[in-house]
Structure formats: structure tokens, C-alpha cells
């Protein structure tokens, strides 16, 4: 029988629903309220993990928060990926995939999702919120795990699937959330990182303080009590099982009784320099750079627990986000309302044919990173940014947020060219704001199009996002 990579277990009858046609694209159409958990065939862990990533990166909390179970065909599980799912079940004997019994504890997660306030159940793409919610719904802490597969040496298995390669790192996001008092940190380990590439895979070695060579001999000193002779152990002759002192020809029998080893020193084979101090350097396995140990980035690797503020934010979202500020400054409509307006406007134009309206789309690339980089100062930027929107938009313009960094503006009685003009003014002002006040730039992508009866707002936004 051909196994399906994805299996949904329904809540009410606890019966699995196998659909060969269930693809990740059709996840949107699933009635998630009915789904108790997702079973992923983990016969091949990398495929299962790839599926988990797709689920966790979905924008709906109904999907990305849903319990996921790896179904393994062996007890031997190695690699942190196994810890990224909520549970791992092993098929017993000739048990079939569909017969796997799902643990009841997972229902706790579903209950948490059900308790989410109504307005928060919609799509949200905020990484930070996702992280908070994953931790809150599982009543879990973010525990780091050392791994050789990740170049920075640590991974947070539960959270890693949420992040795509382009996103900010898990560690930075957790650090930011800690800064915002949403998480509290407990030291797990301290680790050195390459300052050039962030890699934790470093080869530490002592080098000669005089010439930097790493070709060092470790010289062990031996002190013979009776004659006072003290020298490199290699200068003592071996006589049976004891060393023989070259000065007095006596046997060195018992350490501490007739001889001692007072110290060891490093002797450079290149320049002969002798020292007990070595300059410790680290060579990075990833980028091959050699850095003095004292200049390495020494970071605290923490485990993170939700604070009460964080728990609150998991439920109600983060209020310092641009969309929240924009919502206060300009009447921000939901996407559904916006679509409705756009449809009415398109119909009006088609009917009278006298005027033209435009749909403007703006995307601030990396707006979420500003939040991470600037912390509390971000709010100030976002307020300024909202001010710019306000001066350029007219009373009659309607605005919506597709996600955290992409906005659509419906401009009635405006030609496509004029809309483009307004967008370029917006762009100029934003550029000015950033270069003058924050010493950095912000990439803006923009597009203006005429409102016609063929216009499908959502498709247009989707196309713009994926172009």
C-alpha cells in the first residue's frame, strides 16, 4: 500500500482521513477545527521534516499550531529533527500507519488554539507571534540542543521549522523577545562563535606567543630531589621501568618521594621560544578564518520561558507592530473589507466608464528586521512611517495590510500614473526619513495598477509578493 506523506486525524470520531489529493497547497481548504493532529510519515526523517516546515510556516494559527506527530518505523532516531514534532510514535510490528494511537495530551494544544480570541485566529505571519504561540500552546520552554548539523552549533527543535532561510535566526528572534520582556532567559551554555561567519565549529589551539606558530612541543619538567637536577623529561634516560638521572645516574623511583614533575612548558619548534602561556586561537571550520580566542564572540546560549507578558502577547498579538500603529493612525481595513470596496469601485467604473481609480501596492522589504534591530526605537520609526502615509494619502483613500510589511491602497478618482506618482513621493519621503534619522536605508517595492472589473485584489497582491 502506498503511504501518504500527510494524514489528518479528525477530532470528533478520531478517524484518520486519508486523501491522496491532500497537498500543502490545499491545506488552506481544510476545516482545521476538525483536525486533532497531523501524522507525518517519518520513514524518511528529512521528508517528514520538510513537511513539518511547510505546516509551521503556514500563516494560520489553526495550521501552524496544530499538533504534529512523526510516525517512525524504527526506534533508532538520531538528529534534532526528531525533536521538532510534538510527538514521535513508532509503528509496532506489522501495524499499519492508520492504526497509530495518538496521545491524548495533544488535545491540550488544540484546546489552546480554540481559546484564541476570535480576531486573532486569522492569518498572521509574524514570526515573533508564532514563536510565542508555539511556546504558549505547548506550555513549553524553548530548549536549545547542540547539533553538529547546524553551523552555529545549537538548534531549538520546536521553533526551527517556523523559520525559513531568509528569516532572522531563531537565536536573534528569541533574544529580541527577551529584550521585549516577552521571554525570560536561563543560561544553558556559553559558546564561542566565529566573528566572521557565526559558526560554532572552531578548532582551538595554542600557538607560540613569539611567532604565532602552532607547532608546539609540550615539555614536561622533572626535578630529581637528591641532586637538584631539573630538566625536560626526555633528557632522563629510561632504565627499565624507572627514569635515570643524567646528572647522578640514580634511578627515579617514586614520584613525590625522590622526584617531582614541577611543571610543563610549551616549546615552539619553529622559533624555540619557551613559555607556559600559549596564545589560544580558533580556526573556523566554516570560513577558515583564524581568530584569537579573546576576540571570538562569546555568547550565552539560553533556554527561554514565556513571561506573563509573553503569554498575553501570544494570545492578543504584539501591539507595537507597524500594522497596529497604522491601524490607529489611518483607518486600516481588513483585507476582506478592502476587497469588497475594491469590487464596488471596479463595478462603478465599469458601469459609468467616466473615471478611473488605481490600486497601489507597497512593500517594505525587511520591515520586521527593523523591529529586531531597533527594539523599542522601532515604534518611533513606525509612527513616523505612518505619518508619511497620512500626508500622502487622501481622505478618500482606503488602505489595508496584506501582512506585516505589505500594504494595498485603493485610490479612487486617480489615474494609474498619478498613483505611481504618489507612490514615488511616498518612497522619497521614506528614504529621506531613514537616511536622515536612522543612518540606514529601507528597500521599497511598489506597483500601481488601474482598477478594472477583472481585478482580483488577492491575486494581484499574491503575484506582487511572488514576483
Amino acid at each position, binding site marked *: 500500500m502506498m503511504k501518504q506523506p500527510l494524514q489528518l486525524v479528525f477530532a470528533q470520531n478520531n478517524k484518520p482521513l486519508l486523501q491522496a489529493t491532500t497537498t500543502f497547497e490545499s491545506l488552506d481548504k481544510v476545516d482545521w477545527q476538525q483536525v486533532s493532529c497531523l501524522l507525518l510519515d517519518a520513514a524518511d526523517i528529512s521528508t517528514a521534516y520538510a513537511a513539518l516546515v511547510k505546516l509551521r510556516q503556514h500563516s494560520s494559527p489553526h495550521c501552524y499550531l496544530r499538533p504534529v506527530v512523526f510516525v517512525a518505523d524504527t526506534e533508532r532516531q538520531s538528529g534534532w529533527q526528531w525533536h521538532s514534532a510534538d510527538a514521535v510514535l513508532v509503528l509496532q510490528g506489522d501495524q499499519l500507519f492508520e492504526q497509530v494511537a495518538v496521545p491524548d495530551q495533544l488535545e491540550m494544544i488544540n484546546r489552546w488554539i480554540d481559546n484564541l480570541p476570535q480576531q486573532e485566529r486569522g492569518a498572521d505571519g509574524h514570526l515573533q507571534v508564532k514563536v510565542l504561540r508555539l511556546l504558549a500552546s505547548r506550555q513549553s520552554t524553548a530548549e536549545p540542543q547542540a547539533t553538529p548539523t547546524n553551523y552555529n552549533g545549537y538548534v531549538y527543535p520546536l521553533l526551527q521549522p517556523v523559520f525559513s532561510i531568509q528569516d532572522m535566526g531563531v537565536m536573534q528572534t528569541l533574544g529580541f523577545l527577551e529584550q521585549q520582556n516577552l521571554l525570560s532567559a536561563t543560561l544553558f551554555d556559553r559558546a564561542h562563535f566565529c566573528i566572521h561567519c557565526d559558526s560554532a565549529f572552531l578548532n582551538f589551539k595554542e600557538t607560540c606567543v613569539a611567532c604565532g606558530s602552532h607547532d608546539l612541543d609540550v615539555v614536561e619538567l622533572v*626535578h630529581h630531589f*637528591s*641532586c*637538584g*637536577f631539573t630538566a625536560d623529561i626526555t633528557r632522563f634516560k629510561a632504565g627499565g621501568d624507572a627514569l635515570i638521572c643524567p646528572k647522578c645516574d640514580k634511578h627515579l623511583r617514586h614520584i613525590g618521594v625522590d622526584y617531582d*614533575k*614541577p611543571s610543563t612548558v610549551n616549546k615552539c619548534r619553529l622559533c624555540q621560544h619557551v*613559555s*607556559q602561556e600559549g596564545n589560544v586561537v580558533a580556526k573556523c571550520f566554516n570560513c577558515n578564518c583564524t581568530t584569537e580566542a579573546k576576540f571570538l564572540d562569546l555568547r550565552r546560549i539560553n533556554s527561554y520561558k514565556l513571561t506573563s507578558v509573553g503569554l498575553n502577547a501570544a494570545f492578543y498579538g504584539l501591539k507595537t507592530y507597524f500594522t497596529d500603529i497604522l491601524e490607529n493612525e489611518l483607518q486600516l481595513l481588513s483585507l476582506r473589507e478592502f476587497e469588497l470596496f475594491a469590487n464596488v469601485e471596479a463595478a462603478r467604473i465599469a458601469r459609468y466608464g467616466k473615471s478611473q481609480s488605481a490600486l497601489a501596492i507597497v512593500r517594505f522589504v525587511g520591515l520586521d528586521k527593523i523591529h529586531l534591530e531597533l527594539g523599542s526605537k522601532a515604534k518611533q520609526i513606525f509612527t513616523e512611517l505612518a505619518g508619511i502615509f497620512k500626508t500622502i494619502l487622501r481622505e478618500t483613500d482606503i488602505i489595508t495590510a496584506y501582512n506585516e510589511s505589505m500594504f494595498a491602497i485603493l485610490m479612487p478618482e486617480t489615474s494609474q500614473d498619478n498613483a505611481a506618482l504618489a507612490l514615488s513621493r511616498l518612497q522619497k519621503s521614506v528614504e529621506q526619513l531613514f537616511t536622515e534619522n536612522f543612518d540606514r536605508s529601507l528597500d521599497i517595492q511598489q506597483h500601481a495598477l488601474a482598477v478594472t472589473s477583472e481585478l482580483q485584489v488577492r491575486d494581484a497582491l499574491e503575484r506582487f509578493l511572488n514576483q
Partner: protein
Amino acid sequence: MIEQAFVFFINLSGWQLLGYFWPFFMIDMVRYVLLEGVVLLQYLPQRKRKAALYAAARQQLFSQKPLISVIVPGKNEGRYIPKLVQTLRQQSYPFYELIVVDDGSDDATPEICRELERNGLIDCFIRNEIRGGKASAANTALQFAKGRYIVHIDADSHMERDALETILLPFLMDADVGCVGGDVRVANYEDSFAAQIQRIEYSKSIMVGRTVASHLGLLRIVSGAYGAFRRDILEAIHGWDVGPGLDGDITLKIRKMGFKVVHEPASVCYTNVPTSYTKLAKQRYRWDKSMIRFRLRKHRDILWPSESFRWRNFITVADNLFFNLLLDIKWVIYFFQIIQLSSGYIAFLIILNYFFYVCANLVQWLFSAMMLRSLNQKPMYQSVMFIPLMPIYTGTYLRLIRTFAYVMELLHKRSYVDRWNPWKVSKIAKRNKL
């Protein structure tokens, strides 16, 4: 009283004078005034005539630029090292490496020295976690020394600007020279009476005494506080033996190998001496015990005829034994002589003996002044005030300590339980009858 004593003295015949004051006239005056005076009268003009040879040696030194390894073994001496580094940096001869060995210090020595090493002010710092004694620490330094010459110096000292340069000249002037003693002087003489008196003592016994012994080829000690050695010789004898008195020990070994041991009064190093009489007594007790141990027990072969017998080595040891140990006994004899035969004149004898010894010390002080002048150094005029104290210092104080030390050493072999050596090392040394 003094007048009476003077009258008593005037009325003595020559034989009576000798009979009453034989220890002074027959022994001390001959040995320390006449002998030294005669030798100095020969040495000082000769040194002047050798000026050209010294200049040539100096030129040779600066063209060859041999590396010197300055080694500083010690325990809990880190606080002195920065100053020592300073005086080394001011040396006229810059081709040296500084090796500091920390013999299991329990103070901030490792931190201080590591910092200096990091800043390139110490070339090599080695910390022996397990304390092994001064000999072991010096041998550790020797193990890693690269220089052609080894200069052994106490951390608690500073050198004249030309000291390193000058101490090397004897090696270049005579290929048979195996080690050279530097002139150790008292740095802290202004600190106390005891220090003032030690300053006179050092100038007598080291500057004048060792120069004379060196000139006669009889020098038996190169001070551990400041001495230079050829590294090849030190390596051949595998370095220092277990102390105390390891300076004297190694010098004798070098002599036995047939090398010359010389004193160079122009190479000056200042050291801090004990400022209280109690501390001084402890120091001298330690030194004196080692005399017996090394001269009498360990190196007694020098006194017996053998293949490697050398008259000069014999005289060196014999002189030391005679003037230190046997002459200690002469005072006992003298004491009984006075009590038995001339108890009526005790007061006169004491006053006159004191007078003679003050005179002898004055003459010796004049010798040191002459020497300093001929070395173009400032004579220590001010210290003449302390000369009247010298007979009491050397005749009573030091003699008592010495006698006590000899008795203890001969009876109990006390120096094996020396707090300058870890007990483990001392135990082994005792068992091996070293």
C-alpha cells in the same frame, strides 16, 4: 682607665705584646691587613696597566654580541621583578634574555610575571607549581637558557648601568675563566644601623676580600646574588646542587673542573640586606651552616691527595676552614688564657684589643676607599663613622652566630632541615649524606 690601659701597652715588651695579643697580631692582622694590603698594592696598579686589555675585551664583546641569559629563580619575589626589569633595560649591554622561574609562589608573583611576559619585558617565565627549592628553580631556568653566559641574580637587586657588560669582560680576557662574581653592595644602607654596618662588612669581605682572593687564585665563592657563568660549564655539571649555600658549592665544582673563578669588583649590583639584627642573625645562621656542610663534608675530597688534587683548591678550602672554623676555637683558647694567666689585666686587654681591631678596620676601610677610587667610584666616606662598631659586630655578634651554627650543624646536621628547601628535598639530601 683608657689612660691606664695605654700605659700598660707602652710598658709591654715585644714578646709580651705578642703573648697578650697573639690572636690579633699573629692571625687577624697578618691575614686581613698585611696580606690584603700587599695584594692590593700589587693588584690596583696592575689593573690600571691592564686598562688596554679591558678596552680590547669590551670591543670584542660588542663585536661578538654574545647572548646573556639573566636568570632569576625565586619564591614570592614577583613584586621586585618590575624594578629588576627596569634596571636591566637600562643596561649598556642590551643583548640579554630574562628568564624568571617562580618556585611555587603563593602570592601574586605569577600574575605579575605573566603580565610582564605578555608585554615582552620577561622573555621566558616559568612557574613551577610544585616547589622544588632554589637549585631546582635555577636549573629550570638553565634548561631553557639560550645565552652563552648565564647571569644569576637575585630579584631583590638592581644593577649599575654597565654591570652586565663589565661582568663578562673576564671571560673574554681569559678563556680559562669559568665563572665571575659580581660586586654585591648594600642598597638599603640608609635604612638602619644594621644595614650601615653590613655595608662596611660587604665592602671588606666582598669588594676587598674577594678581589684579593681572586687575585691570588683562591676565590672560593661566587655570590648567588650576582654572578656570571659559562653556560657550557653549567651544563656539563648539570647545574646547581641542592642548597643551602649552593653558590659556594657550584663554585667549587667549577674549580675542580680546572676553571678559574674570579671576582670583578667593577661590576656592581646592589641588594637589600636584613635591616634588623634578628633577621640578620637568621640569614647568617643559614649561611654559616652551609659552610660546614659543603666545605667539610661534601667537598672533603679537595683536602686529600688525589688525581685531581690542586694546591690552590686545597688552600681555598683550607683557608676557609682555618679562618672560619679553627679560628673560632682560638677565641676559646684565648679566653681561657686570659682567665688563667692574666685575669688582673682583663679590662686592659679588652680595651686594647678593641683599639687594635678598630685600627685594623680603619685600615681596611682605607683599602676599600683606595679600591673605589681606582675603580672611579665614589668612596663611602660617610660610613667611617660606623667603624668603631665593627669589632663588636664581627668580633662578637657574627662570631656568636657562627659558633652556634657550627655546633648545631656538626651535632645535628641541622641544615638538612632548612626552611629554604622543601622538606622532601632535605630528607633525600640527608639520607644520601650529601
